[in-house]
């Protein structure tokens, strides 16, 4: 009888403590930084191959650019332009911190110097720098979870990222919404130091690629230029493909198809 009472009380204790612990447990494990990390891991595969259509929308015209991209970790990537015909065959190679551009039309390999990193990439709302530098959302910012919010149809964590003092980040702050279910970046707003909105990135149409969930369409909308945006639509995304470092070479830039 005494023994039963003991077991019972232990059981009750466990239930009570467990019940108390269960809810906060999830909130505790998912700190702001962990949310960012999961979203980041989700996006970043070890090796990947993708086919993307980039649509540049301007007030008076739009332009579609076909892209094939291979990547290995964060250090190696090769990007090939497949359309329009005028730009076909142009390739961008990133090895570590070097960026090269192969221009078949003039038969030249151009090393992209730091001074042109700020220029627009292929006329889009991305700069060369955006493609080149993986400024780390995980390491360069301090993260603060400010609650949950519904963005379009998604329930999201709302996080405010503030760059660390010495981080080489131009933004004053970044507000990002990450879906609770899939850890997909649904929306990010980039502000300058006067809290003025500069860019917005929206993610649409979440799809599964292998065991990952990603937004298959992303829109970059500059705040100060009306009727202007760049849309990236994922046609194909393969993760963990077999590829090695030798693929990311200047020779390969010229012959890759």
């Amino acid at each position: 009888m005494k023994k039963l009472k003991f077991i019972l009380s232990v059981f009750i204790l466990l239930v009570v403590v467990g019940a108390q612990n269960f809810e906060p447990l999830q909130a505790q494990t998912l700190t702001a930084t962990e949310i960012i990390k999961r979203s980041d891991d989700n996006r970043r595969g070890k090796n990947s191959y993708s086919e993307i259509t980039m649509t540049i929308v301007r007030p008076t015209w739009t332009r579609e650019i076909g892209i094939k991209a291979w990547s290995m970790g964060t250090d190696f990537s090769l990007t090939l332009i497949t359309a329009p015909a005028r730009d076909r065959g142009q390739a961008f190679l990133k090895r570590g911190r070097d960026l090269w551009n192969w221009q078949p039309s003039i038969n030249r390999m151009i090393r992209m110097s730091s001074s042109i990193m700020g220029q627009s990439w292929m006329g889009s709302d991305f700069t060369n720098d955006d493609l080149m530098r993986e400024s780390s959302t995980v390491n360069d910012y301090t993260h603060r979870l400010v609650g949950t919010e519904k963005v379009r149809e998604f329930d999201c964590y709302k996080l405010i990222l503030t760059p660390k003092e010495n981080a080489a980040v131009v933004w004053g702050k970044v507000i990002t919404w990450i879906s609770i279910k899939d850890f997909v970046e649904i929306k990010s707003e980039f502000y300058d130091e006067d809290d003025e909105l500069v860019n917005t990135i929206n993610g649409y149409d979440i799809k599964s690629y292998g065991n990952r969930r990603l937004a298959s369409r992303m829109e970059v909308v500059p705040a100060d230029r009306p009727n202007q945006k760049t849309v990236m639509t994922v046609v194909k995304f393969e993760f963990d493909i077999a590829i090695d470092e030798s693929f990311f070479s200047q020779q390969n830039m010229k012959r890759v198809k």
Partner: protein
Amino acid sequence: MNILRLAWKNIWRNKVRSGVILSAIAIGLFAGTFLLSFMQGWILGTVNSDIKTQYSHVQIHNADFLANYDVNAFFMREDVENEIRRGVARNAPTAEIAFRLNLNGMLASPHNAIGVTAKGVFEDEEILVTDVWQQIPDTMGVFLNDDTRMAIVISSRVADRLRVRLRSRIVFTFQDVHGDMQSIAFRVGGIYRTTNAIFDEANVFVRYSDIFSYTGLPEGAVHEAAVLLPDIETSNIVAPQLREMFPDMSVQDWSQMNPALSMYFSYTKFMGVVILGIFLFALSFGIINTMLMAVLERTRELGMLGAIGMSKRQIFSMIMLETVFLTLLGGIVGIILGIAVVLPTMETGIDLSFFMEDQFEDFGFASVVYPILNIKMLAEIVVLVILAGILSALYPARKALQLKPLEAMRQ
């Protein structure tokens, strides 16, 4: 002597006619003097301000540096510093020297990104060599000499393009000695504005100590030594000496660093004389006309002078002297007027910006001009005036010579 007096008196026989041509010459010479001193002041002001903000008198680089501003083309400060100081000590003991890193890269804000050259400077010696620190308005921060961490000094033109203000964070990206990209966050610590838009858009300043560790250069490495001397004349002496002392390095004086500017410099001097020449050429037609009238009017009188024994040479020199007096007098009045107008503006300067706005500055010329007068220039003007007088006297004087005394008297 008598002829001198005679010529002088003759001028004043027809006061209106002489007065008119005198005024014409005076106004022409006034304009010429003013224009010359204005142009000289303008170009010298531009040269000196470029030397003060940008070039200094002499710059020394690694011989490979100027080919493509390679970050690897450095030299060691300690290797050359004492030698340079020794080299300039003889002719310019007051010379100042600044050492710098010179890094090309991209400066990015949330709104924009532009290519710039970042100068990694030792702020204490930099303020003695360049005057960029003086071009920072009081409310616009300071030239790196406060305790702002990772401070960067940019121009107002760069600030506008990046849409940043004092204390804004901007990121500078450049390639280090290994070719790796380095990105560093800076805070805007000062915003300057010089009269040279081209310079402003290309140059930002950071502390040597802040940026050095990112470059991967060996301790004490620099790209550039800038030497400021008392004046251009000293520079013409010191630059060749330094060139001899550092045969393996590139030693350039201001005129080599900016050949266009040095070309303007000589060109303006030359153009000044040409313009004055054209002025005088036009004026000499007026003088010829006046003197010809004087001669034709006085046919009887000249014939009489010949008849009573004045030689042809004397008549010739009389007409010549009349013309030269007239021209010289007009010229001197004009020059004095010119000096009178230039003198007060030499200190205060003439501000052109009210009708040209920044157009001059966009091309690197100062919009406030401080005219310059010098004895050599004035002497040149006087010589030109006398020359014009003599040349324009030839024809009327020859006309006077052709008169036959008897026929002339009979008219």
